[in-house]
Structures are given as structure tokens and as C-alpha cells.
């Protein structure tokens, strides 16, 4: 089955070579970072987590978002999703791969990473995150591969895989919940210290994951004979739309609590993210344009998404999904993690700007994830199309 990944059109090969090049640049930059230390990045004493951890957090969501594609088919026997469940599982594999790579890239002593297992520490949320992420990766590899292989052989998947598929569903919830717990259990960080952080993470994940899948599905529709079908497409619009609405509702709840209560600690970070924060006569606002764009893109993206369904316009649909994906990426992949460090514990402001090398490593990791995903999708689609022929 694996051999299918090595045969393909010029477009496919070109895309894979392009990703390999970006991965190469990432590897080069990482070797520099490994030599020098994490000072290679833009992080500092005050903003001690940067792009790596924020990408990690966002991508855990993309991985968990696969749930929304698997659940309707396996639990509710929703036949129209038959073609996309496998895409959801393989997207999760790509996303978790990126998560684990981002964690490794962020460690000061990566060769000591196994200390987390050698000295298991149940009171640390990072310990649990390591467990849930790795198990989720294994579950998706197992379920995705076994189901696809059965399909390849022209038989129904074996019975023994069912419990693993059922387990993968609550497990998807757990990965994003535990990731939220990394942040919302810290007593000194007001911005993160909110009980709706995990629900908000899940809502944004259930919008961002399927939105990315929709974009990929539309690309596949154009470049291959693989079509997920109008019914599945329309149902996905419902899922993405409502999850995105829920996410913005949660954002609204956060804004209300902070500004109505008028508690300085709760307002500071939001001020910094949306309006700029004044400190010692200087206004710090480097994230303001991004956060405002994120808001606007989200609020335009949702009506556009529903309109695209009414008009049956794939172009509009891709635009809406892209707007929502970028909006949620900025919200969680930038604002949430970076914002939490402003102001610092002494009410001072240090702004973070990623270094060029750090950006290259980040792009390299994303490319690796997409490389893995493309490889798996190539196999899945070839098998499916061959079976139908």
C-alpha cells in the first residue's frame, strides 16, 4: 500500500519536493539553534514561550478537530462522511507530528526529553500532555491504517479495531483539554486563568480542524477525481460554522468578564492584544493589527461560510474557510500564548518578535506535517479511487 505514495503526477512530486526544500531549511536553522541555544529565537526572560509553543497549542486543536469528521460516521452512522473520516484521521496524524516536533524544538535540553518518562510526575500537566498526545498519535495511526488497509483489500474493517476507534473520540477531547490545563492552572497569569479556556480551545479546534480539511478537500476536488460529495460538504459547513460561532461567543464572554469587572489583571492582556498597553510612557501594541484582523476575518468568515452553501459556490467556501482558519490561527497560534506573558509578573512589558531562524524552523515543522499528510492522503485517495474504478 505504501508504494502508492511514490507514484504520482508532476504536480504531486513538485509539491513534495517543495516541502522537502522547506524542511531542509528548517533542519539547517535547527542545527544552528542546537549549537547556540534557545537564545537563537526571539524569546526572553519575560516572554519565555514563543512561536513554537503557540504553534503547538494551535495544532493540538487541529488534531482534535479530526474528531468532528470521525464522530458522525462511527457513532451516528452518518454515511455521507464515509469518505472524509480517513482524511480526518490522517490530518490528526500530521498535526500531532507537528505538535511533538514543536515541543522538541522548544526544549532547552532536547536530549533529556525522555526524563519526562524516566521521572513520571503526575502533578505536572506537561506529563499528562505527553501521554495523551502520544497515545492519540498511536490511535490515529492504528485506526487510519487498519481501516484503509481493509478498504484496499476490499473488505470491511475488522471488528477488533472498533474499540480503538471509539476510544479515539473522547481521546481527541482529552488532548485539547489537557493542553488548556497547561495554561489555565497557573495562579499568576490572569489572562490564562479562566475555566472556559478548555471549552474555548475545543470550540476553536472544531472550527479550525474541519476548515483546514475543507480547504484540502476542495484542492483535491480540483486536482484529482476525489470528491467528498455535496452532502458531506454541506454538513461540514454546519459544523465549522457553529463551532466558530461558539468560539467567538466564548471570546465575548472573556471580554465581558474582564471589562465589566474592571479588574486590572484581567484587562491588561486584552488591552495589549486589542488596543495597545501603555507602560512607562510607551504604548506596546505589536499584536494589535493581527488580533483585529483575526476578529474581522472571523466575523466576515462565518456569514460568508453559510452564504457559500446557499450559493453552492466552492470558491466562496474556500475563501470563508481560509479566513476562519487564519482568524483562529492568529487568535490561538499568536495571541493566546504570547499575550499571556504581557504584562510580566512585575507589571512590566517586554514585547516578543520571533527571529528569522525561529520562523524558518517553524515553517520547517509545518512543512514536515504537510509532507506527512500529503503522503498519507496520496495513499488514501489512490486506494479509494482504485476501489471505485
Amino acid at each position, binding site marked *: 500500500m505504501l508504494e502508492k505514495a511514490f507514484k504520482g503526477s508532476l504536480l504531486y512530486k513538485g509539491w513534495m519536493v517543495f516541502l522537502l526544500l522547506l524542511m531542509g531549511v528548517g533542519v539547517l536553522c535547527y542545527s544552528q539553534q542546537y549549537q547556540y541555544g534557545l537564545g537563537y529565537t526571539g524569546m526572553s526572560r519575560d516572554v519565555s514561550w514563543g512561536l513554537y509553543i503557540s504553534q503547538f497549542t494551535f495544532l493540538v486543536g487541529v488534531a482534535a478537530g479530526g474528531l468532528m469528521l470521525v464522530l458522525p460516521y462511527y457513532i451516528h452512522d452518518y454515511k455521507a462522511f464515509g469518505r472524509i473520516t480517513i482524511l480526518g484521521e490522517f490530518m490528526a496524524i500530521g498535526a500531532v507530528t507537528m505538535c511533538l516536533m514543536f515541543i522538541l524544538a522548544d526544549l532547552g535540553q532536547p536530549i533529556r526529553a525522555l*526524563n519526562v518518562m524516566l521521572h513520571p510526575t503526575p502533578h505536572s500537566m506537561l506529563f499528562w500532555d505527553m501521554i495523551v498526545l502520544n497515545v492519540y498519535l498511536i490511535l490515529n495511526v492504528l485506526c487510519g491504517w487498519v481501516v484503509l488497509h481493509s478498504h484496499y483489500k476490499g473488505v470491511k474493517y475488522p471488528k477488533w479495531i472498533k474499540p480503538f476507534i471509539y476510544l479515539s473520540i473522547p481521546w481527541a477531547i482529552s488532548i485539547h483539554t489537557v493542553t488548556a490545563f497547561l495554561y489555565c492552572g497557573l495562579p499568576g497569569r490572569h489572562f490564562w486563568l479562566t475555566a472556559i479556556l478548555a471549552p474555548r480551545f475545543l470550540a476553536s479546534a472544531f472550527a479550525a480542524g474541519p476548515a483546514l480539511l475543507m480547504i484540502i478537500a476542495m484542492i483535491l476536488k480540483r486536482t484529482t477525481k476525489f470528491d467528498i460529495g455535496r452532502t458531506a460538504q454541506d454538513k461540514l459547513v454546519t459544523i465549522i460554522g457553529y463551532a466558530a460561532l461558539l468560539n467567538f461567543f466564548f471570546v465575548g464572554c472573556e471580554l465581558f468578564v474582564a471589562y465589566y469587572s474592571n479588574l486590572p489583571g484581567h484587562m491588561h492582556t486584552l488591552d495589549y492584544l486589542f488596543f495597545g498597553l501603555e507602560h512607562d510612557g510607551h504604548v506596546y501594541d505589536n499584536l494589535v493589527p493581527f488580533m483585529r484582523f483575526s476578529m474581522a476575518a472571523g466575523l466576515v468568515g462565518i456569514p460568508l461560510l453559510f452564504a457559500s452553501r446557499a450559493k453552492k459556490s466552492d470558491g466562496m467556501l474556500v475563501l470563508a474557510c481560509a479566513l476562519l482558519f487564519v482568524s483562529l490561527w492568529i487568535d490561538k497560534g499568536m495571541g493566546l500564548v504570547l499575550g499571556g506573558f504581557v504584562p510580566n509578573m512585575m507589571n512590566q512589558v517586554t514585547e516578543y518578535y520571533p527571529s528569522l531562524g525561529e520562523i524558518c524552523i517553524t515553517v520547517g515543522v509545518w512543512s514536515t506535517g504537510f509532507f506527512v499528510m500529503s503522503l498519507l492522503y496520496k495513499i488514501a485517495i489512490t486506494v479509494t479511487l482504485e476501489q471505485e474504478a
Partner: protein
Amino acid sequence: MDSNRRKFLKMAGLGAIAGVAAPSAFSTLLKGEAQASSGHGHAAAATHGGHGSAATSGKQYGLVIDVKKFADNPGLGEKCIKACHSLHNVPDYGNKKDEIKWIWLEKYENAFPEHSHYKRNAELHKLPIVTMCNHCEKPPCVRACPTKATFKNSDGIVMMDFHRCIGCRFCMAACPYGARSFNWRDPRGKSEIGKPFIKRINPDFPTRTRGVVEKCNFCAERLARGKKPACVEAAGSAMIFGDLNEPGSKINKVLSKKFTIQRKPATGTNPSLFYIL
């Protein structure tokens, strides 16, 4: 009948296992803070309260900082910093991004952001507030660390194992006092113009490698030899160090007489540093 009996025994067995396992699992999860405690909030009382399962020796070292004496003696704070940083091989990179500090001076409004003093702010603003690790009774950094590289010692000191730390910096996100520093680059190295980051290496204390977190250790290595922490020695009467759990100790006498405050009491960490203002 038989199958019912078997079912019952199974359920009873599982129930017994759950009953035994659950409490111990929970106490592991909440390790270091499982015991109820009267806490430092009432530290003026002779007994300092419970310190979780780690404090087997019953000690909890603490520090009283007389801010007024630091204000009256300009340069005293800097003297303490120098004593600590030269002893512990703390590197100086000359920039804020790579900065490492174990003890430093903060403005009043930054050290105590929740305590404003109406119309006295100008006067308070000038006070040099010495800050460092608070060696909390319930340290959030210890809770966050995924490898136990930072842990609470039996004498209450929050320690670092530089050889176990993986450099994830979760503890830095968790500390409400900004007391932790990370080695963003090799501290044993030199700047572009050939200036070593550690001016003179003290062979009696380890230098660190890049990629690990570090912070004040209350001079555990000096306490082991019966000496006071270096900053306390340098500060003279401006700092009082001692065991908060020893009823007759000097620090307890001071705490019971003077009005002292702690940083960020609302975080529930019960810091062991007390300020006389």
C-alpha cells in the same frame, strides 16, 4: 446463581481496588499540597503550619527584608546582588534578552502591583525592593515541572537539579514572582569582544549549561556548612534569616512584632519572604 455470585465478587473486587487506589492517586496528583495548612498568612504565630509531605525535617527557611534599611544605605542592595551573583557564577550578558538574575532590585509598584498607596506613591516609588525566589510553601513551579527537576527540599527550600532540567520553561510560566531565569545561551562562553560572561568563576559552585532554568537556592550549599545565605551576610541587619517553624527563632520574634507584607498573597503560594516597609 453462580454467574450472579461471580459478578458480585468481581464488582466487590473492583470496588475495593478503586477505594484503595483513588485516594492515593489523588494525593499523588496534588503532591506537595495535600495537607491542610494554616499557612504563612499567619506566620507571626510561633508554629508555621503544615508544609505538605515534602517538609520532613519540619524546617521552613524564611527571610525578613527591612526595606527602610536598604533605602537608608544606598548601595546595600547592589552589594547583596554582587555577593550572590559572584558566588553562584551568575553570568552577565549585558542585555535584557539573555538576562539571568537570582536576586535583584525592583520598584515598589512592580514588586507589589496589588498594593497601591494613595498619595504616598512618589515616596514609595524610590524604595529599593530586594526580590528573589520566594521559596513558597506551595510553589506553583514545583507543581508544573514535568521531571521533578525543581522540587521542595526538606528544609522548605525550592531547589533546582540542573542535570535533570529539560528546559521546557513551564516553571517560568508558573512562577508568579518572575524569579526564574533561563540559560538562553552558553553561560561559560565569551562575548564578541572576548569578555567572559562569568567574570571570575567560583570553583566551589557549579556553572550551568545552556538550556536549563536557574534561580536563587537560598544558599543551600552555605547553609549545609552552617553559614548564612550570602545576601543575608552582606546585608547585615537589613535582612533576618531563619527557620519559620522554630518557635523561638529571631525571625519569628521579628515577624510577631513588626508589620510585614508578602508579595502577591492572593496567589495562595504562601511566600517565605517578608517585607518591612
